[in-house]
């Protein structure tokens, strides 16, 4: 009786392994291709030949067409500033929505959720004129400002705070914690996996955002990496894949390296967020 059960389990295990491998390969294929194309002359960008000569010319060419270092610094400043602001705003708003009943709290939360349903691209012209009135056109703050009150972040943190047992809060109150103390000592530490997960999503989203930064910025001093990458898009003539790949690698390298370094923490945080 135990034997068939055992084989079924190993069958499912094998299937799971295959599935995981297929998905992983699918996911990583574009990246592998980018590596292949970036380091080989363009004749080889669609021909696989193990003996193809390696070259750094594509990187040289890409770097000569746009100041990627400066763009990299801009992107870094943008995502750090944005993430910091989102964390502060998100934490405070989520705490209010999760634990306090105030006049109109449900309506206010509903409005926050509505923000999730509107694509930011529709609001480009409106956001632009608001920022123009505030004098933020062509600044890094200007790129980040419309995204600082992230509805996604507020929602995610609210759910995390709501699922924290109320007893912990009561215990903290008995120990003499105030409203703010409870937030900082109970809710925030317990929601760490959520913070990490949200941080990852936020950073990768804003690292990759293109249209809005392109519209709101005018100069090299403020433009992020993606706008530099846009120069290689060449919709009218078709793309030179080798150079695009090299430029893409330049743009994603910092993110990729950071992910590889902190991979364990990321995976763990997702596991926590998942099994909760």
């Amino acid at each position: 009786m135990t034997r068939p059960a055992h084989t079924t389990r190993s069958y499912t295990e094998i299937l799971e392994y295959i599935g995981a491998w297929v998905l992983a390969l699918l996911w990583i294929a574009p990246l592998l291709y980018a590596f292949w194309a970036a380091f080989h002359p363009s004749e080889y960008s669609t021909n696989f030949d193990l003996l193809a000569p390696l070259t750094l010319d594509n990187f040289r060419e890409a770097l000569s067409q746009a100041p990627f270092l400066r763009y990299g610094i801009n992107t870094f400043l943008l995502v750090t500033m944005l993430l910091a602001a989102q964390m502060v705003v998100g934490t405070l708003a989520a705490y209010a929505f999760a634990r306090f009943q105030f006049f109109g709290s449900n309506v206010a939360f509903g409005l926050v959720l509505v923000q999730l349903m509107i694509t930011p691209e529709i609001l480009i012209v409106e956001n632009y004129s608001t920022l123009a009135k505030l004098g933020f056109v062509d600044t890094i703050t200007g790129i980040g400002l419309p995204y600082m009150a992230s509805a996604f972040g507020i929602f995610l943190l609210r759910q995390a705070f709501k699922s924290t047992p109320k007893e912990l809060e009561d215990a903290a109150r008995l120990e003499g914690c105030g409203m703010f103390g409870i937030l900082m000592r109970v809710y925030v530490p317990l929601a760490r996996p959520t913070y990490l997960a949200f941080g990852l999503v936020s950073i990768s989203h804003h690292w990759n955002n293109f249209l809005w930064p392109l519209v709101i910025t005018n100069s090299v001093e403020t433009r992020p990496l993606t706008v530099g990458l846009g120069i290689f898009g060449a919709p009218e003539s078709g793309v030179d894949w080798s150079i695009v790949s090299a430029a893409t690698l330049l743009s994603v390298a910092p993110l990729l390296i950071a992910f590889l370094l902190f991979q364990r923490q990321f995976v763990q945080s997702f596991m926590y967020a998942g099994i909760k």
Partner: protein
Amino acid sequence: MFKLITKTMAGIVAAVCLSIMAASLSTAAYAKTKLTMYYPVAVGGPLTKIVDGMVADFMKQNPDIEVNAIYAGNYNDARIKALAALNSGQPAQLSVMFSIDLYELIEQDAIVAFDDVVKTDEEKDWLKSFYPTLMQNGTTGGKTWGIPFQRSTIVMYYNKDAFKAAGLDPEKAPASWDELVAAGKKLTKSDGSQWGMMIPSTGYPYWMFGALSMQNDQVLMNSAGNQTNFAEPATIEALQFWKDLGSKHKVMPDGTIEWGTLRKNFLEGKTAIMWHSTGNLTTVKKKAAFDFGVAMLPANKRRGTPTGGGNFYIFKKTTPEERSASMKLIKFMTSPAQSANWSMQTGYMGISQAAYDTSELQEYVKGFPYAAVARDQLEFATAELSTYETGRVRKSLDDAIQAALTGSKTPEEALKEAQATADRLLKPYR
């Protein structure tokens, strides 16, 4: 005592005079006209550098004008950026934008007609100095709204080595649809390693289709931009021919063909013929490992291709000084010498006969005759599809073309539907 007072007085007067002079000097510096110009990048290569170089040359010649040239993404992004800036009162005086954005820009009341900006007779003559075909997308209602800058047409690139191998004369490109099919059959290898030809059908299907329908002696829209001819018999026949190339004659892969990778396919010998923008010329010249040729597109009832690319526009919210400074800049950028230089560096075509008359471009064409194919083809060219509600009208045609090519609808069904959609969209403008 008196002396001291006069001395002080003199000192004060001198100081006041000096400061007034300084002030007037600084206002003189301040009176520099500032221009903000947006431009898109639509072909590969270091275009931003070329534009920056041209603008720097202009400012050297015109120290009283300061130009801030801003790269604004592709054509769509450039339009969004320009309109967003205009709506919020940010400075922008002129822009290079897609030639087919004309009606939308007019509808938004964003641009001013050049007829209202030109003053002298010399300037009026200047308006007429460009190839008339290139002006078609920039004129409507008897007025000129756009000045051609980065312009292209579709041309036929072919692999001469493949022609030789298939027993075809490499100096004689197919000149009619029948010749094209016949050559395609010889060029197509049965093992699928080489196709006879490829016409891209993603990205800009309406553009390629503009060529086919023109060759069948049918333009896709009227010049008022409020009527399309998608369901005309000649249009349907043109789409049927496009479909037949793949499904009946088997000289082209069945289904849709990717725009972005087509050049790669051509350079690797996967297709012996490709139809593509002249914007590819410089790259193909640099990268082709085989002998290649460039020819005009073939004819059915006549030859034909749409023009493409970007025009200069001047925005409406500008002062008279800014307008005349913008005119100066546009005149400089489209001058024969600059246009010739731009054409050689990018593969875009020269925009006036005078550009091809410059010794530089003549020299270049002598060494590389294919650089003049696009110009010679202008004689047969027509405007690119551009109407009111242009984005949605264009999409209805794109969808129809792709539906027909993938076989989910017959060309007739698909085009009739597209025409119905266009009629509905354009009704308010008639």
